[in-house]
């Protein structure tokens, strides 16, 4: 090992903290405060969703029929797997297992890219079907027997769909960037069982992004599989 655990701690320790213990707790608290602002940030979009869904329920049902439930469910599973590898990577950081932490972070990134790839496939399909809000928006239900009842408000559903999943995807891209950073820093020996706050905090961010998707999936894809479309 290039640097000892004590050397890592000496390098990381900030003079305005009483000890490493206090420094770590402060850092975790700060990250949670940031996540609180993120919750309120996404919360505004979720609130807009609730208001419009309550007002134009049938238009939202018809919009959600266009979602590919299996791609959405696969992406949910992919994110849950990425959260597992991320959580285990943080555990390795706590134990000082640098090499295993590196591998787990690489797997986390692979899952992250898989999520974005599947999302890109879905976006392409919606784009080609003119299911993007704006002048070229054109909505048709899959069944010619039952034409769209309220395409104007289905456009609102798709506005919220693109805004919420797009913002989520942006968070995924930032998350992959952050994982790359702690992977490189971790390989360079920046962390030890005494100092691993960046790994822990990037982990918190990654799990938060997973948490947002856990709510997005049922709200956007599973509004109603059975009693809609007619």
């Amino acid at each position, binding site marked *: 090992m290039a640097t000892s655990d004590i050397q890592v701690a000496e390098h990381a*320790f900030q*003079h305005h903290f009483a000890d490493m213990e206090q420094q770590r707790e402060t850092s975790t608290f700060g990250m*949670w405060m940031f996540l609180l602002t993120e919750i309120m940030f996404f919360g505004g979009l979720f609130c807009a969703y609730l208001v419009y869904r309550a007002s134009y329920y049938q238009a939202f049902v018809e919009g959600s029929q266009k979602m590919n439930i299996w791609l959405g469910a696969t992406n949910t599973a992919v994110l849950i797997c990425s959260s597992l590898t991320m959580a285990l990577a943080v555990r390795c950081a706590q134990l000082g297992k640098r090499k295993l932490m590196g591998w787990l972070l690489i797997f986390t990134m692979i899952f992250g890219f898989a999520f974005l790839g599947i999302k890109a496939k879905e976006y392409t399909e919606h784009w080609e079907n003119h299911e993007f809000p704006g002048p070229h928006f054109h909505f048709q239900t899959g069944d010619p027997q039952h034409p769209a009842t309220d395409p104007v408000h289905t456009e609102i559903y798709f506005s919220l769909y693109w805004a919420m999943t797009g913002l989520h995807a942006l968070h995924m891209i930032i998350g992959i960037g952050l994982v790359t950073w702690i992977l490189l820093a971790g390989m360079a020996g920046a962390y030890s069982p*005494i100092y691993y706050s960046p790994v822990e905090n990037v*982990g918190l961010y990654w799990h938060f992004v997973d948490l947002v998707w856990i709510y997005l999936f049922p709200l956007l894809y*599973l509004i109603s599989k059975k009693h809609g479309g007619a």
Partner: protein
Amino acid sequence: MAQEHAHFHPGSKQEHFDPSSHIAPISMYVGIWAALMIFTGVTVFAATIELHVFNIVLALLIATIKGTLVVLFFMHLRYSTKLTMVTVVAAIFFLLILFSLSMTDYLTRDWLTFVSH
């Protein structure tokens, strides 16, 4: 100065008793992962059953169970300080204020027609 401080504290014994550096067994993480995967299947299946207004209630209930597992175990809230727990409760509290006050407005706007006649 910073170096001297760091010398004294990092290796101290209390490190091992600190709740925030609690090291959970791998089996716990795998167990939570399995529970999250099962609940994902349950929520997809639940969407195929006709429950009227309770479809959304059930979907949000399952999502909240999954979210709670993620926050408590993957995000280590269970092993965090009281200050961090209060922060998370505050986030949920303000989110519920946002939702409940907005919805009491939008969901009751139709009621005005009864009053005006």
